[in-house]
């Protein structure tokens, strides 16, 4: 059969020769090349259109990820601090001045992974005092420098203070050493307060040519949340030098700004004190200077800290101002170890005998008082076999020295750092918290990504198949 079939086909093919013997068109090459060019152009146009659609869709999706506006009303008595803090997932919503989060119980920073793999950054987030939900925070105009990352949450959880960024007008500092920066030394040009309920921002810009010089204790709220005290120096033309720090206070209610401490006061840190005071801390002398926000004459009292090579940190007062806790150090054998102390403060502001946190714990930070006798202290075990001892937050009863779990947190500061609590709310029972979602993207993002990936996969598969076929044919596998 096959022979006859071949004969029949050959016979049929001979019929092609019956047609007029027309030569092939002379412009096949030109038409083919032009067709190819048109396909390339159309592919580029389609890709551009896809990108344009993406550009339009992605911000829309981003918009959906923002928080809904802060609750129009909430019962102030219902505000609470959660009993545990997590690092939020990447896909938690973002809050800012246009979408304020409402009262916050906690502000901290955590690593937020980007949409693209391997891209991640430390970002600020807040935990709602109303429902303990999480949102990333975009503070309008916040300075980006490392030294300006610290923020201050007001004790009532209704405002957050931060440093403003900008471009100092001074000329770039010229230095002879090429390894030194020739940019202005800082992008900090002022400070601001964001109202977390209304979204209002109260900004105060400082006249500076080279930016402001900060340390990590530059922002402190008064105990009544009425004033934000800001300490800063001004960078000068000579590389690295700055003026002596000045402390100013900003009253968010009306934007009033006044100077609290002139340069050269010797106060290394300012903390909220009892009875409408701010307390200046003379770190080098171990003295407290009680400053009334209304008068300028301080009452200075020494704190009887034991000898140590460790500089004491800023003290923290309990709500009534009758006790104070401070981080310092303690000589032990050849070395000095961090230690946490607490002492009673008498009516005439004399500081009494110190009690010390159990030395099984190495204290890192004092976070605030839960009540008149319990202070929250972030610690790690002193004796720990391993490279990175886990962090935990303890409630330390300064009257009898006992400790109990305070607020739960991830064990590593790689995951979570810079915890600031709304200290007024600590006086209330902690509220049981649930782990925030946001590890997985919401469905619009998943759907968009899925459709795009599928389209790309199909296109790549088709292209790969065509190339393989062409290659196979070019290699003669079909023959």
């Amino acid at each position, binding site marked *: 059969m096959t022979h006859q079939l071949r004969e029949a086909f050959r016979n049929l093919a001979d019929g092609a020769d019956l047609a007029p013997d027309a030569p092939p068109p002379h412009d096949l090459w030109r038409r083919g090349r032009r067709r*190819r060019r048109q396909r390339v152009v159309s592919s580029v146009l389609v890709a551009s259109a896809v990108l344009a659609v993406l550009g339009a869709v992605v911000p829309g999706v981003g918009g959906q990820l923002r928080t809904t506006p802060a609750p129009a009303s909430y019962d102030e008595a219902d505000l609470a601090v959660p009993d545990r803090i997590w690092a939020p997932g990447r896909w938690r919503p973002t809050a800012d001045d246009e979408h304020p989060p409402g009262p916050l119980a906690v502000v901290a920073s955590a690593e937020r992974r980007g949409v693209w793999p391997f891209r991640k950054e430390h970002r600020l987030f807040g935990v709602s005092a109303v429902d303990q939900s999480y949102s990333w925070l975009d503070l309008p105009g916040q300075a980006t420098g490392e030294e300006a990352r610290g923020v201050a949450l007001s004790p009532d959880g209704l405002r957050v203070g931060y440093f403003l960024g900008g471009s100092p007008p001074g000329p770039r500092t010229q230095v002879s050493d090429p390894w030194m920066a020739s940019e202005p030394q800082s992008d900090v040009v002022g400070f601001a307060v964001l109202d977390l309920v209304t979204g209002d921002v109260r900004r105060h810009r400082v006249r500076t040519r080279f930016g402001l010089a900060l340390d990590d204790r530059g922002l402190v709220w008064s105990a009544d949340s009425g004033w934000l005290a800001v300490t800063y120096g001004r960078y000068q033309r000579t590389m690295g030098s700055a003026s002596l720090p000045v402390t100013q206070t900003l009253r968010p209610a009306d934007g009033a700004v006044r100077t609290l401490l002139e340069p050269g006061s010797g106060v290394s840190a300012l903390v909220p004190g009892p009875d409408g005071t701010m307390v200046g801390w003379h770190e080098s002398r171990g003295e407290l200077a009680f400053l009334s926000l209304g008068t300028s004459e301080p009452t200075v009292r020494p704190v009887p800290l034991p000898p140590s090579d460790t500089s004491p940190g800023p003290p923290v007062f309990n709500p009534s101002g009758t006790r104070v806790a401070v981080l310092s150090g303690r000589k032990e054998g050849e070395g000095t170890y961090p230690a946490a102390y607490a002492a009673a403060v008498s009516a005439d502001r004399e500081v009494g005998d110190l009690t010390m946190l159990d030395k099984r714990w190495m204290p890192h930070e004092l976070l605030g008082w839960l009540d008149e006798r319990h202070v929250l202290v972030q610690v790690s075990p002193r004796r720990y076999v391993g490279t990175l001892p886990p962090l935990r937050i303890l409630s330390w009863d300064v009257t009898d020295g006992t400790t109990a779990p305070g607020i739960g947190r991830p064990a590593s500061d790689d995951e979570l750092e810079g915890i600031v609590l709304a200290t007024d709310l600590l006086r209330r029972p902690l509220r049981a918290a649930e782990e925030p979602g946001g590890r997985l993207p919401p469905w619009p993002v998943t759907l968009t990504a899925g459709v795009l990936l599928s389209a790309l996969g199909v296109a790549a598969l088709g292209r790969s198949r065509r190339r393989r076929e*062409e290659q196979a*044919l070019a290699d003669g596998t079909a023959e």
Partner: protein
Amino acid sequence: MSAGEEGYNAFVTARYAALRRTAYVLTGNHHDAEDLVQTALMKAAGVWGRIHERPEPYVRRIMYHENISRWRRRRVAEELDGHDAAVEHADATVDRIVIANALARLTPKQRTVLVLRYVEDLTEQQAATVMGVGVGTIKSQTRHALTRLRRLAPELVGHMEPADA
């Protein structure tokens, strides 16, 4: 004129008639055959840089696939142009008319398989590679095509050995 264009023109001049013969068997009429060959050659011009060393398998492959695609697009069975056949084939043998009409009633895939196997003399494996299908598909398509041919052209099948099918 570039070297690529020169090589392309030389290929077209040398192989155009042979390609048209195959296209004629595939399509069943002169007009579609010309169109099919020219389309395949145009596509070949676009990728000449990659195929210039062995262009003919690529062009033939394009012809097979393009023919099937056109049929899919039209979604109607192609009818052999009876008038043209009668006129153009006035001096053709009876067998030629019979097989042309029978082929026209096959699906383009079945027709392509028969062309690959009995005109191009490809093995089943080679035909499968060209069609981008499995060897089993080539076997079944061949079997179905021959069965149908027997029914459509008993005159032709009369010459065939049943066992060959």
